[in-house]
């Protein structure tokens, strides 16, 4: 199982704010790792992958500031596949899919979370996930 699939599964399994934050933190980390792994595979994706990786790091750091994020070490995915054998198109599709899901789940809590700081962190992290999705799908200029 590759890291993106694993991240999607955790995200889908999360049922409350701490769970979503925990899984979103891991998802951003995994997206970042996969993007860094593939950013030099093809000159055509270089710019989009760099900016997406920046957005993934920003999204992860926004989650880290959220008060509802459970303390303690997150699950480590270091041993799992970084989509080594996948072509660039498959990587792009996988990241676009998980980033869209991230944006959707975090946007919900950006409105409904009880703590204002949680709302702010979820909102900003959702924006970063949306930026990744836009870059992967070519929807928006930077």
């Amino acid at each position, binding site marked *: 199982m590759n890291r993106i699939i694993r991240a999607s599964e955790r995200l889908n399994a999360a049922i409350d704010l701490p769970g979503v934050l925990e899984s979103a933190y891991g998802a951003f980390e995994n997206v970042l790792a996969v993007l860094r792994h593939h950013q030099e595979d093809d*000159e055509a994706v270089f710019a*989009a992958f760099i*900016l997406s*990786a*920046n957005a993934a790091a920003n999204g992860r750091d926004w989650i880290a500031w959220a008060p509802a994020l459970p303390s303690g*070490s997150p699950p480590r995915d270091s041993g799992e596949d970084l989509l080594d054998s996948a072509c660039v198109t498959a990587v792009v599709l996988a990241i676009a899919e998980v980033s869209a899901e991230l944006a959707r789940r975090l946007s919900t809590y950006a409105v409904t979370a009880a703590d204002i700081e949680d709302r702010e962190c979820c909102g900003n992290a959702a924006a970063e996930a949306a930026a990744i999705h836009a870059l992967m799908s*070519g929807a928006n200029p*930077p």
Partner: protein
Amino acid sequence: MTGRATFGEFAASATRRLGAIVRGIDLPDWPGSADTCADVPVAVHSAMRTLTGYGEDAWGVLGDARLDSTAQLRPWIRAASQASPRIDDSEVLLQSEPGGEDRRGREEQIDWTGQVGSSMRAAVRSMQLARDLLHTHLDPRLSLAAEGRSEWAPVVTSAPVACALLDRVGGWASQIAPVAARVAASGRGITAAERRYLYAASQRLWAISWAVGEAQERQPVGQDRLQLLEAIPVNARPASSYPAVDAAVSGLCDGVISTAERLRAAARQAAARAAWSPTLTRESLRHTAGCCAITASNLRIVLRTLAEHHGRPGASLNGSMAAAAAAADCARATWLQAAEAWDHITTDTRGATSGTAADATRLALWTGRLAYASSDWTPALGPRHAARPATDLAASPDQLRHVIDAIHHASHTLTFVGEADRSQARSASMTGRLIVPTRSLPDSFDVPFRFAPAPGTRSAPLLSSYDRAVEASAAATDAIAELAADAKAPSRMLAAYRTAIGAGLAASAEGSRSGHAKVAVARAARDHATTAAPAPWHAPAIPAGPVERILLDLDITSADELKQAAALDTAADQLILRAATAAQAARPGRDPGRSAGTAELISHLAAASGRPIPEALLPARPVGRVHGVDGAALTAHPRAAQVRARQAELEAGA
């Protein structure tokens, strides 16, 4: 070079007008009627004031440089002294003449209808405008933060450019002197006192001209320095812009150049504010590094396209372009490493995006539009974009020159931004602004807070990645500078610019250490006379010590006194280090930095020593705990984290 008014344009205008007057001297009926000559004394007086203003500027730079300079500058120092303002005979003659003040007061009211007077007045106006243009780069406020208003400030206040300025002054003086002498000899339309004044003024002008000529003979100012002076533009920040969909190559090149200039100005400002700026955020620095990697990648594509498809196969320029493309690729890789280093570290502020990041985005976009054929290229994914064909990039020699001009500016800017962001990262590290999420640390860390100061193992790679990015970007810029020189692109002045900055750095190394140069440049701007070799905007991060800072706070600008203060601070550092090393068996729990006074000394020691400081000087360390940035323990001992972070960096560096 930039599309803005330059010193050279005004200076050339003055030279041209004066030249026209000088050519008329040899005519048999010159200077013609008395009306033609009536205004010459006032015009000459105005010219004298302007020229001595220039002399004052040059003396401000070279006069202070005489403290440390080698014999090379001595002829120019003498020339600057000659051109500096003084109460001399000519001035006294004009002032002592009844109505002399009235005559000077009339300067603005005279109807300059006479050919000689009007031409000279126009020339003097051009000279004044040229000087005003130079002063737009200097900050008139006297403060430690004053390092000039633009990237050109260190050039304007550099010794080589001061010598070039004197060369100009000498040329103008040699043009005005014979005019003054001839009008005085004719005696037409002037009073006896004005005649005496013109004689005295011509003698003074000849003296200036001869002093400059002698200096030029003994120690010639290189053509590159003269051209650098000519190329200094007025200080104005270009407006931000995005490329139009139908932009032509020429327009894209102009956009790259103006955006690069904007980015350099923004980066320079950000570096100066790093210790406190709310826009020093992980978002800004990550984004800037990423966009610089994209820009370097775009430059590589342009150069590679030109190398592979421009001109005859194997032509010498093609080889240089291929080498430059390889250097740009190296810069791309190092900027990528800088962006990756930010994956593992964050900042104490968040959310805000700096002007540098915004302009870096625009530069990536402009260079991308130049590199790719697609008129709607963006960094976002989309249809695969083909590179712009070489026939499009180099449709004519002028177009090729323009493209090289643009990519030279962009590459120079990458170096500039690298230096600025490295300075920001260092500042952030030294002030404890680099942090990491504690959940990203190994489990062996027992941290009760969400964030902790970045350990040296995280901050050291970040700082060294910027070192590599700066080095690689500078190498790429040097490679492109060779192309610019071959193509005679206007941007070849950038190479002279960096050389002048380098010369300024070397000349001011001692002054920068003491903080003297910063004050001197500020004073120079205030007085319209600079007094030291320039302080580079990316001056060394070693702060002034307690004694030196007190002197600076007292507005002491004497080089000798500031050097003495710096020496006292250094001696104090060494004494404390020796004593602390001897007292390694410190009492448990003792904190030598518990008072504000001793804490300041130890903080300076940590910053200036350049090596790990003895354990005995470190604050008491709670066993098995690391304080988080949002923790009470850290709030109680903010300096402890800072000193320990510095210690960790030094250990990591060692």
